[in-house]
Structures are given as C-alpha cells and as structure tokens.
C-alpha cells in the first residue's frame, strides 16, 4: 500500500497557503541555476510553469510533440477563465469561488487545494493582462465578465470565443522569451515515452524524436508532467487528436498513483455526431447557455421542424427542472438531463440524439448584432460543420466527452507518489472533484503553472540532496531499451487491423459502459471485453513503415495501447465507486432522477497503484476531510 500524505497545511483555511509558502525551503538565487527541471507539455500549465521557473533561474528543458509549443490543446478552450475579482460587485469572493468549485465538484475535491486555487485566481488575471492578453473590455475600459454554469455571479473573463488561445499565446510568448534568453531548452517534435527513476526519485525521461525516430534520454533534478487529459480514450471527444494518456500512464506504471480515473466530464453542448466518418467532436461553448435556451418537444417522436412546434408544446427542461440555475445548470447535470430527454424518445435530429439550443428569444430581445458580437465565431463554426444557420434555426446539440477530472494523484505541493515527479493542469486530479465547472480548467492550469509549482518545486529541490547523475546511468539505458523493444514489437505484428479501428472499438466500449450512465452489469461486461481488445491489439494491428522516420501510425499505436489499459482502470474505478457523484452516474444509485452520493462510504479519493502487467491495480484511499464546508446534497433547483 502507498502512503498517501496530502500534506495539506494545518491552520485556518484562509492562511494555509501563506503559511505554507513561508514554511517551505527556498533555493537561493545563485543556486537555482545549478538545478534542472524537465517539463513535459507546453499547454497552459506547462508553458506557464516553464517560463516562470526559467524566470526564477532554474535550468528548464521543455518537451512537446507538436512542431511548436503554441499548438497545445489549451488553445481550443473557448469560453473563459474564472477569477474571484468581484469586479461586477455581485457578491463574489475567494470564499464563494472556493465554495462553488467544491459544490460543483460534488464534494469530492480537497478543500485546501481548491481554496488556494480560488486565492491565486485573481493574480492570474493581473498577470495575463500585464502580458497583453486582450480580455474583453467595456466601453469605459474596464474588464468585462460573463456567467458560466454552476455559479450565480458573473466572474468569467473572456477573449471573444478564443480565451484559451489568448491565454496560451500569453504563456507561449513568455516561454519563447525565456527560450531566446537561453533559460529554456525547448524540444519540439519530441514525445515522452518513459519516466526514469534513480534511487526512487524521478530523475529524467526517455523521448522519441518524431521526425528522426531517435530515442534519447534526458536527466534532471525534477520532472514535471503537464500533459493534459485523457478524454480521447473514448475515441470521439472534443479533445485534439493528439491528446493522450501515455506520459501519465507510463509514469503510473513506474509507481505514480492514478486518482479517480472514472471522473470524466461529458459536456452538454457539442455538435451531434453526423456519421461513421467522424474523427472528433466539436464543442459549442458553455457561454452560449447565457443566451440560448435548451428544449425538446413535449411529445415523444415529434417529427415536426422546430419552427412548427408551438411554444406550449416545448419542454425547456433545464428551466423546468432547475429553475434557480436554469440553462446554466452545471455540466454533468445538464448533460444527464439531455440524455434523459433523448432516452425518453424526445430527442431531435438524425437518430434522435440531439436537443435544441435556441437563440430566437435572445435575438428578439437583444438583436442579431449583439448575438453576433457575442458568439459570431461559434455560430460560423456551427454552420460550417452542419450546413445549418443557427441565426434562423435552433442549434442541435448533444453531450460529448470533454475533460477528465481524474489524473495522477498529487499532494498539496502537486507532487505525485513518486518523489520528484510533479503533475500540473488537467493531468493531475487535484481541484475539480467529480465534476469541473466551466471556465475552471484554464484557471487551474495557470494557477498550477504560474503560482503554485514554481514555489513548491523549490521546496522539493532544497529538501532533497540529489546525487548528480547523467544519462549514462543504467536506469536510462534500461528505459531506452524498454521503449525500443515496445516499438519493435508494435512494428512487427503486421496484422490485419488499423490502429484507428481498434481505437474506435475501445471508444465504443468505454462510451457504452463507462459514459454518462454506468451500471454494475455494464462495467463488469466492459472488464471482460477490454482484455480481449488488448490481446487483439497486440496480435493483430498493422503499423506500416519504420521507427526511424516520421511515422504517425506508430505514434498512434503507442497511445492506443496505453488507452486500452487506462480504459480498464476507469471501468474498475467506476465499478468500485458504488455511488453517483458529479460526472460519475451509477444508475443503481439515484433518488428522484438525481445523483445519490454516499458520503459515509465514498468521501475519499481513490488512488490506484500499479501492481504489474497482469494484475489489477491496488486501491488506496485518501479520506476527504471537510472542515469548512458542510457536505450537502447538491441542489440547483
């Protein structure tokens, strides 16, 4: 069993972070340049952490598989970033953002981490504005805000529908500045394939250059993973095609506990699937629910077009079921409600898998011009994909996989169960519990990267006397050999199936049995199917080409192999958690159609420990202790 020490500081909630910052050991400025840190990934978390640590004086090496750090998937975040600025004078505060996040996560996140997140949220906005991030402004020159789900205050900062892009470019530019100064050694087209431990500490990584195929080792005093979420285990998701679990999965296999893998977020407003050719799903920002109204026909099987259905025969189901939050109910709740309507035979569009998101009222009230200013780029994107004009007919939307709350277990210092290995951003599990609120992913990525990790990593470095090592150490040679061996094996199978065909099959299993509604029976069945799929993969895939050049099929194969194993762990986690909470909805555990939590038995973080290739992972529990909030049934009614 692992020793899971969350290292949450004692003392009043409001003072924990201040106290902790004071009690942490420091590395003096002239010594920092003697210490090296590897950062894998350059999305919001990785780019901000790399730039900030370089500014502090550490020798930073940053690795991305893209051609440029500007391509990371943070760039696709549309709607916004939360911060407890209370610029709108509507009663927001650090405490309220903290509470909303804990409640939104269905009381399955760690209090101390979430409070710190809310505290540093205000600094993020200041930092980004100083960098030149063009957040939306009012005519008087002050910053504008919009509302997001799960909150009754307006605290979301945004840059049109491209907030993630603008925040990432801010962090990217800060990173490029450090590269130019020689403080960051940037490695593009370089994919991490293994983590290297020496004397139990994370001391480096093995990578493959995607252009040349060269396998190389890199050593450092600490390793930071900022490699994003694993939503692509479902094959179809709103994630970019390259998003994968391999970095964290291989770290898991080297000893890092994987926490709450079954907590996945299904986003309510995505463009429905149009056919078998579909390679990914496209999100329509949650911000649309500020002005769009979600509805289905009251009558089952109503085949009339939306304009032919009179007002009295429409069911605005979110407004009906959750009058105080209405269309801005949190994502898990809105998704489930849409699924229920479709399961009830009242879905719209091809296959009945869709609900309307209707802007007619808003256009009448505010005018087409205003709606176009607010959401024009999203409306254009919708039209390009569906060939329908959302100014004239309601959008059709359906839930899709969007974000993964689970990830590597980390303590308050964002360190995993492997000393020296840190995980930041979406790839850790830390702040969102069982459901993330809209506009909180950007907040967490930048909080971790700009304001938390750069402090806590100093404490790790100052507290550990790390022997100097280089990549000639036997541990690196072993890892390189393992990576090469795996690659040779995949290239040598020469079977009859493409990697994508296996990936699609995996996605269907996970979506059917570990998606929006999960049952004991279904999960048990999935756990029978997945080992068979794994065997099929390892005996029947066809990876053309060689390992010594750009080979995108080989890249995909490695990622899909890890997804299959992760899928098994997700199902095992979902099966063991006999309650419904947030994005994890077990059909057996509900009350009047709402999720039924079981705090007595399940108020803990499930941290799974790897136990070998053919053994089930071992469950470790970190109890969630609530000293400042009362565990209540989450209600948005």
């Amino acid at each position: 069993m692992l020793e899971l020490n969350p290292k949450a500081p004692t003392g009043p909630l409001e003072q924990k972070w201040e106290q902790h910052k004071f009690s942490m050991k420091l590395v003096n400025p002239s010594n920092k340049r003697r210490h090296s840190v590897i950062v894998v990934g350059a999305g919001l978390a990785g780019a901000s952490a790399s730039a900030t640590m370089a500014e502090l004086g550490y020798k930073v090496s940053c690795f991305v598989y893209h051609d440029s750090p500007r391509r990371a998937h943070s760039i696709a975040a549309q709607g916004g970033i939360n911060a407890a600025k209370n610029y709108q004078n509507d009663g927001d505060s650090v405490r309220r953002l903290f509470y909303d996040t804990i409640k939104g996560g269905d009381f399955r996140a760690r209090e101390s981490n979430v409070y710190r997140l809310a505290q540093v949220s205000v600094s993020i906005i200041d930092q980004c504005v100083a960098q030149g991030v063009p957040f939306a402004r009012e005519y008087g020159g002050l910053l504008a805000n919009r509302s997001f789900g799960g909150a009754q205050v307006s605290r979301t900062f945004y840059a049109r529908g491209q907030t993630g892009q603008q925040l990432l470019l801010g962090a990217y530019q800060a990173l490029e500045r450090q590269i130019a100064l020689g403080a960051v050694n940037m490695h593009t087209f370089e994919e991490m394939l293994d983590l290297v431990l020496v004397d139990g500490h994370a001391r480096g990584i093995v990578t493959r250059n995607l252009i040349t195929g060269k396998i190389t080792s890199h050593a450092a005093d600490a390793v930071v993973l900022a490699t994003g979420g694993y939503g692509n285990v479902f094959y179809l998701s709103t994630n970019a095609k390259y998003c994968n679990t391999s970095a964290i999965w291989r770290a898991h296999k080297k000893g890092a506990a994987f926490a709450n893998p079954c907590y996945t977020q299904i986003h309510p407003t995505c463009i429905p699937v149009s056919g078998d050719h579909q390679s990914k799903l496209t999100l329509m920002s949650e911000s649309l629910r500020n002005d769009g109204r979600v509805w289905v026909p009251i009558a089952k099987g109503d085949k009339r077009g939306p304009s032919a259905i009179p007002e009295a025969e429409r069911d605005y189901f979110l407004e009906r079921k959750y009058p105080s939050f209405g269309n801005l109910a949190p994502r898990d709740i809105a998704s489930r409600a849409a699924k229920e309507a479709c399961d009830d035979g009242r879905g719209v569009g091809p296959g009945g898998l869709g609900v309307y998101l209707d802007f007619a009222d808003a256009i009448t009230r505010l005018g087409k011009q205003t709606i176009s200013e607010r959401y024009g780029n999203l409306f254009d994107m919708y039209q390009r994909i569906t060939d329908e004009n959302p100014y004239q007919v309601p959008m059709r939307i359906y839930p899709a996989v969007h974000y993964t709350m689970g990830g590597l277990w980390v303590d308050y210092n964002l360190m995993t169960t492997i000393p020296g290995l840190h995980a930041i951003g979406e790839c850790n599990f830390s702040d969102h519990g069982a459901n993330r609120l809209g506009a909180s992913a950007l907040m967490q990525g930048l909080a971790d990267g700009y304001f938390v990790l750069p402090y806590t990593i100093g404490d790790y470095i100052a507290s550990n006397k790390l022997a100097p090592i280089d990549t000639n150490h036997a541990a690196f040679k072993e890892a390189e050999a393992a990576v090469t061996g795996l690659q040779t094996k995949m290239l040598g199978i020469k079977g009859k199936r493409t990697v994508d065909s296996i990936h699609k099959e995996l996605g269907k299993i996970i979506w059917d049995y570990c998606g929006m509604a999960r049952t004991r029976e279904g999960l048990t069945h999935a756990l029978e199917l997945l080992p068979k799929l794994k065997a099929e993969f390892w005996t029947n895939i066809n990876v053309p080409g060689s390992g010594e050049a750009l080979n995108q099929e080989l890249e995909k194969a490695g990622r899909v192999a890890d997804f299959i194993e992760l899928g098994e762990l997700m199902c095992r986690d979902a099966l063991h958690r006999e309650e419904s909470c947030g994005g994890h909805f077990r059909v057996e555990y509900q009350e009047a159609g709402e999720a039924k939590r079981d705090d007595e038995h399940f108020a803990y973080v499930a941290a799974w420990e790897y136990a070998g290739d053919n053994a089930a992972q071992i469950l470790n529990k970190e109890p969630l202790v609530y000293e400042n909030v009362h565990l209540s049934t989450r209600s948005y009614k």
Partner: protein
Amino acid sequence: MKLNLKVWRQEGPKAQGALETYSLDGVSSDSSFLEMIDMLNEQLTMTGKEPVAFAHDCREGICGSCSMMINGQAHGPWKATATCQLHMRAFKEGDTITVEPWRASAFPVVKDLVVDRSSFDRIIQAGGYVSVNTGGARDANEILIGKEVLDESMDAAACIGCGACVAACPNASASLFTGAKIAHLGALPQGQPERDRRALAMVETMDLEGFGHCTLVGECMEACPKEISIDVIKTMNRDYIMATARRQAPKVATAGAG
C-alpha cells in the same frame, strides 16, 4: 462520392517528392477534409502502403497545425476556414483534388504534407511578447483599455500561426503573421515600452529566416482562416520605420550601486 486525389508524397526533407494519384470512393459530403484524408490513410494502410503524413490536431480551426494547399489554394476553397473545418460538401462527385504542402523556403518539407514552421517561433522569440516576469503585476483594472482599441488588438491577436499567409504569398512573405503580433501588442498600453525594439527585432528576424518581402499583393489576407486584415502590415511597416528613425546605439546597462 468518388474522388481522384493527387497527393504530394515526399519521404524526407532531402528526398525528391512527387504527386501520386489515388482513387477514393464512398466519401460522405458531411465529412471534413481531414476525415477524407483519414479515410485515404486507412485504405493505404490496409493495402500495405504508407499513409500520408499530415499535420493536424484540434480539428476545430484554432491550433493552426493543419496546412494543406488544396487545388492551389491555401486551406482550400472556403473563405475564413482552415483545412480541418473545410467539409467535403465543397466538392462534387468525380472531382480531382490536388493536395500539396505549404511551399516556402522558410518552411522546409519534413515529410509528405508536413512542413517545419519553427521559423515562426523564432520570429516570436525575437520580440513577440511583453517582458513581464510572473508576479508583481498590478490589478488588471488599473490598466484602462477602450473597447475599440481592445477590439483592434484582438482582431490581430486571433492569428493561429498556421502559415497560410506565407503559402499564399507569391513572395513567401511572413508579413501578415509578423504584423499581426506587432499590431496586437502595439495597440495595447502594455505593449508600448518595447514597441520599437519589437518591430525592429521581429522584422529583422523575419528577413533572416528567409521569408520574402511584402509587395502588398493581398493573397495572405484572402487565405487567412482568421481573416487577419492586411492593415496589420501597414502597422508593422509604420512601427518599423518609426523605430528605425529613432534607433540609437543601445545604452549600456550599468550595475546598481547597491
């Protein structure tokens, strides 16, 4: 629908490339252009051939990875649309579609349709930022920025760094890309202290990287999936000329007395 595809195949940076012809049947008009290429690649893999290497990732028009010259047009026939958002309903039964990589000496071909755009990163490295370290920023609302100024800045900041502007330009100039960053930061109060230095360094780096000069043809603006206006090039030229006029020998920084 059934299509004839002529696709640029090139094994590596130094290899000789050529167009190869493939026939593809059963393409849905609802699929995206990249999903059509996915389909081609499945077909190639199953017939023992190497699939076409191409750059892509988000497939929602924002990461800037995808980069295909489609029938001679950067990102294909739809206006304000990246390759990944182009859908097959833009084509009809029996069409022949030619697909090539971006062509520019500053974007060498890596393989097939993949090119190396690291020259863009080096242009940003030269000065495409505001030099502020993390921490110590003042309250965000202390900097007042009028909505019109902000909108102008945001219009330029929307650039996704795909390189279509370079590919479409007969001179392979990177002026739209470089101008967009200079205009984004130059419009804002935060960008003023380094405005001269930024314009000089970025323009000089653009030249050193081997991009051509701008002769205001305007193809860049037509190809840009984010409809960045050629006005940013005017801004860049103005800033560059003003900065050149003001350029002085750099002042030597002296250590503090403390």
